[in-house]
């Protein structure tokens, strides 16, 4: 683990939640898709805690990253109508995000007891 990287993401996460500054959001998405286990966790927690504020950024990242699964996980963790809408759109698209998004929607159904 890069402790410095994790500490930086911790600070960036606070900035994102407080201000919504786009560079902070992008840095968190970068940590989410490129970081090690702890960096992904810190970035993912910060993005999740910011809720709907993070959804547009994550929706855009779904198609822009080679491995969209961490992004899908955060959208599913947010779980709001806006996040689910982004997952549904991804599930219908012809992209690498389609299968993970569909699986995440099934998990959300399970969580809801449907």
């Amino acid at each position, binding site marked *: *683990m890069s402790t410095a990287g994790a500490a930086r993401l911790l600070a960036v996460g606070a900035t994102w939640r407080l201000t919504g500054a786009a560079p902070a959001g992008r840095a968190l998405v970068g940590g989410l898709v490129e970081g090690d*286990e*702890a960096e992904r*966790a810190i970035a993912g*927690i910060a993005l999740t805690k910011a809720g709907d504020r993070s959804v547009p950024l994550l929706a855009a990242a779904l198609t822009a990253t080679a491995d969209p699964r961490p992004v899908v996980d955060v959208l599913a*963790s947010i*779980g709001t109508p806006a996040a689910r809408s982004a997952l549904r759109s991804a599930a219908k698209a012809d992209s690498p995000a389609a299968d993970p998004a569909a699986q995440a929607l099934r998990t959300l159904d399970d969580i809801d007891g*449907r």
Partner: protein
Amino acid sequence: MPGPDPTPVAGAEAYTRRDRDARLSQAAIVLSLGAAAAGQPERVDRPDAVGLPADLAPLGQREPVPLEEAVAPLGITADEQRSRSGPAVPSGTRGALMDQVVADPNPTNAAALVEACLHSGDRLVRTAAAVSALDTTGPRDDVVAQLVDGATRGRDMAKDIGRLGLARVDPDHPALRRVVVRTTPPDASDRPSHTAFITHGTFAPRTTWWRPGGDFYTYLDGLTPPLHVHDPSFQWSGLYSDGARRLAAQQMLDWVASQGLQRPDLFAHSHGGTVANLATGLGLDLDRLVLLSWPVHEEWFPDFTRVGRIIDIRVNLDLVILADRGGQTFTPPASAAGKVTSHVNGWFAHSDTHDPDYWDRHGLAAVL
């Protein structure tokens, strides 16, 4: 430690006994009949071991046997069979039908035994019969209902067999959605196993350290005395939400039962520890619970009465726990104070607690 291997019970005797060997043999017989009906007799290994003819090819069918014909030897109508409203089918009938299959192996006799086994008092046998009925008399509502019953209410093999059958007729059925790990080998039931298993934390189901072959799994598996680390490990969604952890806790409870594990040890990282704690609240019994970098939240404390000992391993000022806003010190209630020992070494790095080098540096194997 593995239990004794089951011993097949041959022929009608399987239907006169109620022990584990007999129930497994009954299930094996009806599943064999189903495979033969589907034209796959070669899939049946050693049919003679359970008293079936060595050549099951004559049981192959081009069309389903009409239900009326299949249930005629049971003394009930097809409607009564569909609704299970007719008179009870005596257990002796199943033994007699088994004798008929042996004496005259044909599709109708085989279908009759399968239908009779749908009346068994044992869920495993009923569920196995339902799987075979898909091939002998064809899919119908009561058969699917039995598959759902096996998949949702069964344990161990009954659950797995129910799921497999249900997947054939209704792959999108909600009962199949909770399958999060590979299915249990058919011989895993009733395995008295004192062992350990591992699970991951938030956003980490795709990491490798906790899986068989992963570095921490391999490290634990090589310790002396041996922990008998279970293969596979437990995987959950890893989502960061209360609901995801509660769902995972139920899945863990079901999974431990399906794997035949009895009061295992559990190594759980991060919110995998929360999942473990919630599972104890649902009835999961654990011997040693090793919490690795668990973010402390009092509302997710374990049911201490269901855990023999808790070993809490963490670093100081864990940055991920800071992001989570969890506590960094596990202080159990006074009634459970003697059950928890904490080992706090190093700083900041959430993942260190599943790093073999960290374990060696701090002598953690000795605290288990």
